[in-house]
Each structure stands twice: as C-alpha cells, then as structure tokens.
C-alpha cells in the first residue's frame, strides 16, 4: 500500500526556487507527498461540511490558518 502511494507521488520531476538553501531530505519529500495526499481528501470533506453549515447559518471556517483565526486572540 505504502509502496503504491510512494510510486504515485514520485511521478513528476520538478525544480525548486533559485534561492533554496536547505537540504529538504529525500525521505521528507516523499513523505509529505503521502501525507498531503491524505490531508487533501480530509480537508476537502471538511470544507464541504463547513459549506453545508454556513447554508444553515452557522459560522466557522474549515481553515485553521485564515485571517479570522487572528481575532480569537485578545491583546
């Protein structure tokens, strides 16, 4: 199963920005592809769920990183 996922993520050759200076690590690159592939499914479902919620007038965002999250912190 894992091997199939790894093969799927290793399909395309890509290049990095000119100023990359970290060694990203081969294992890390492959793994993030696998995790992101799973995460995108979860996040898509979550986004639809929040769309349904908003249809019924409930607030909130599927994203933990959007601007409105800033407001939750008081100064």
């Amino acid at each position, binding site marked *: 199963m894992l091997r199939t996922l790894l093969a799927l*993520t*290793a*399909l*395309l*050759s*890509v*290049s*990095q*920005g*000119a*100023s*990359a*200076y*970290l*060694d*990203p*690590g*081969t*294992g*890390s*690159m*492959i*793994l*993030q*592809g696998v*995790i*992101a*592939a799973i*995460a*995108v499914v*979860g*996040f*898509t479902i979550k986004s639809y769920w929040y769309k349904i919620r908003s249809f019924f007038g409930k607030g909130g965002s*599927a*994203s*933990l*990183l*959007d*601007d409105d*999250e*800033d407001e939750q*912190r*008081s*100064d």
Partner: protein
Amino acid sequence: MDTLSSSFRDPSGFVFLHDKIVHRQVNNSFAASYDAFVSSGLYDKLVERKLLVAHEEITDGSVAGTRDCYRILKPQQIPFISYPYEWSFSQLKDAAMLTLKVQHEAIRHGFILKDASAYNVQFLDSRPVFIDTLSFDTYTPGTPWVAYKQFCQHFLAPLALMAHTDVELSKLMISHIDGVPLPLASKLLPFKTRFNYAIATHIHLHSRMQQQHADNALDDTPATSKHSSLSEQSLKALMEALAKAVQKLTWKMPDTEWGDYYENTNYSDRAGEEKRDLVDRLLGSIPDQLTVVQDFGANTGEFSRIAAKHSALVVSQDIDPVAVEMNYRKSAAGGPVNILPLIQDFSSPSPAIGWGNAERDSFLQRSHCDALLVLALVHHLAISNNVPLSNIAALFASLTQWLVIEFVPKEDSQVIRLLATREDIFPDYTRDGFEAAFRQNFTIEDSSPVAESERTLYLMKTRT
C-alpha cells in the same frame, strides 16, 4: 561592517548592526524574489495581520552595504532576542502556528517559505512575530515544501516531546541547533504516540523514511529534483494538517513547586500588598528612563506586572516551565503585553551555541538591562547552589545599572527549608554579610524591611 553571526546560512542576505540598530542587507542574488514579495502585496498583508515585522528601505545611502548589496532594510527593532529553548510550551506552540499562518498567506500570494526555523520567530508585545523578511521565495506550482523537515524538527518534535514525554525536553534545542532530530524524538516519545495519527506520521514514520533514504543517499538523485510533485491544493491541505497537529498538542501542567506559590507563601495578604507597593516605590524612585527591566526568578510574573508600569519591556525569567507558561498565558490574554516570560536556569543560563559558538548568543550576552529585579532568589543561588554572595553581586553588576533585590535571611521559613537537609556552611549568609558583599559592586540607595517577614528589600546602584 558589524555582521551578526546568526545569519550566514541563507545566501539571500544577512543581518548587521549599524549605530546599534539591526539592519538587513538583501543580496543581488535575491533581488527578484524580494521585489516580487513586496509588489505582490504579501509584505503589506503580513504586516497588517501583525505576522511579520515591518521595515523601511534605506534609500538615502546613509547605511552602506557590501558590494553584493541590492537593498538595505531597517526592520522594526526587537528589544530582546529570545530562543526556542527558553520558551514555554504555549510560546513554542504559538510560534509554530504563526509560521504556518505566514506560510498560508504566502501560498495565497504565490510565495512559499524556504525555511521554517524557530529562530525566525521572536516575541513582541506578548505575541510571536516573524522576523525573517528574506524567507519568502516565489512559489513554483507543483513543488513540495523544502522546509517541511525543518518545521517538524523545530516545532512538531519539541512540542510533541514537551507534551508527551517531558516539558524540559525543549532544552534539546540547545544541543541541536537545527531542531530535534526526528530519530531522537521518535525514540524518546512514548509508545502510545504511535497511535496518534499526526505524531505517527510527521515524526515516527518521517524518522524511519529519513533513515531509510539516508542509507541510500548515493543512489537517490537530489531530493529537490526527483520526488513528489505536490499540487497547490495538496500543499495547502498539508499546512492545515500541520496546523491541526500543532493545535491538538496540549501540555497538561503538573503540580509544581512554584505553580501555586502565591497561594502558599510566607506572606499574608497585607504583607503581599505591602511588598508590591514597596517594589513599585523602589522602581519608581529610579531617576533614569527604563527601557528594559529584567526580573530574575519572576515566578508567574506578579512583580513583573508592577515593573511593566515603569519600563518599556520587562523580561520575566524563571526556572520553572509551569510558572513561565502561566506568566505567558496571562500576558498574552490580559496584558500588560510588555512582558516577555522566558525559562531560565540562573545557575546555568543559556550558553552561546552554533558555529563558532556565535550563532545564538548566551544569556549573559543578551541580558544587559536598565534595572534588574531579583526577589526571593538570592537564597536559592547562595544556599541551594553554593554561589558566594560576592560572585552574585559581581554578576548582577555586570548586567545592570540599577538593582532591586530582596535578601531572605536564615530565619525565613524558605531558607530553613533549604538548610533542613544539609549542613550550614554559610556563616556569611547574614544581612550584614549580604550588604558587605554587594557594597563591593553597588551603593545601597534605599532599603526597607518587608512587612510581617524577616526579609529586606534594597535599591542599589552599580558603582562606576
């Protein structure tokens, strides 16, 4: 040029001091990325959201760069530099969330963070802020995040270790300047974390894959040119997954020797109130303008909050991670925000680390201040740690012009407790001995007994 030794890793530019003000040079090699970063609106958006320090470009030639200079930036100054191994759990967690928010905003504008170092974050007004203006590279659709490994090492691994193994393990960042190695984190985390999806993948599996590919490094083509194409949608989802992983990490604070200190001290309510008034009066009587006050042994910051009325910033340090955590939560939630709580063991403060022992300054290199507040600490240094009083006085005098210090005599129950299990080898630990030792480096400007106790508070001035 007074180049800071902390900024040599990234060839896009470097940081230097000019007239004691921190400046940043953008090198010619990074010109296009920097211009795009500003013109895209990303810089303005990050500054508006208070996620990034603002800067001004120096265009009048008043500050010279090197031959490779494209721009000189003068960023908003950070009054006190702190490091991740000095942060409490929530400080490191907030710094992790900040990094992901910055990354999220960057992706929206067509950029990506090329590093995810915890040292890119500092604290200003009790909130984390990103300080590395040159971390933003143009995003090439389809590329993965080169800093994913670094994010796990600098944030996820130490946070997971603090939450699941021991909160003191943030100190591993001292011995590992590029974050906690994932194989080490994986080894130290309890077995149950293998059933936690986020930790199992980002740390345990990540560690295994790193090791597996390190063994085959010569057979692999460079990581950046081979594996894993990642769509923008997947990249964003990865950031959300990392944010969820960070947010789900919580630290259950244990009962602590200091955590409930103020509910269980030698002081009655009235005596506590009088001590607060006395500290307030002594700090208020200092004729100089106070920019930075250090509070050593600050506990949860009760007296730092008084000092915050007198100084632009109070660096509020204590050895106890619980007290520092409570201090930070209070400062971040209700203010005053000009308090920076940090974990510090004064018997062995943060060393200088990194290349040439110069990448990250030691605690003493960073600790100069206008006034130093040392309440209920001297007996711990002198008796628990056997430091002679004259050594304590000499160290404090090297850091500050003004000193507000409390002497806790042997008759005090806290000192009786410290001496209960050991031989009393401190014949000079008396009020007279304390004053004589400190007079070598200070003049005593004021002194006052603390009500309903045997203690004395002093205002001292460093001899010049």
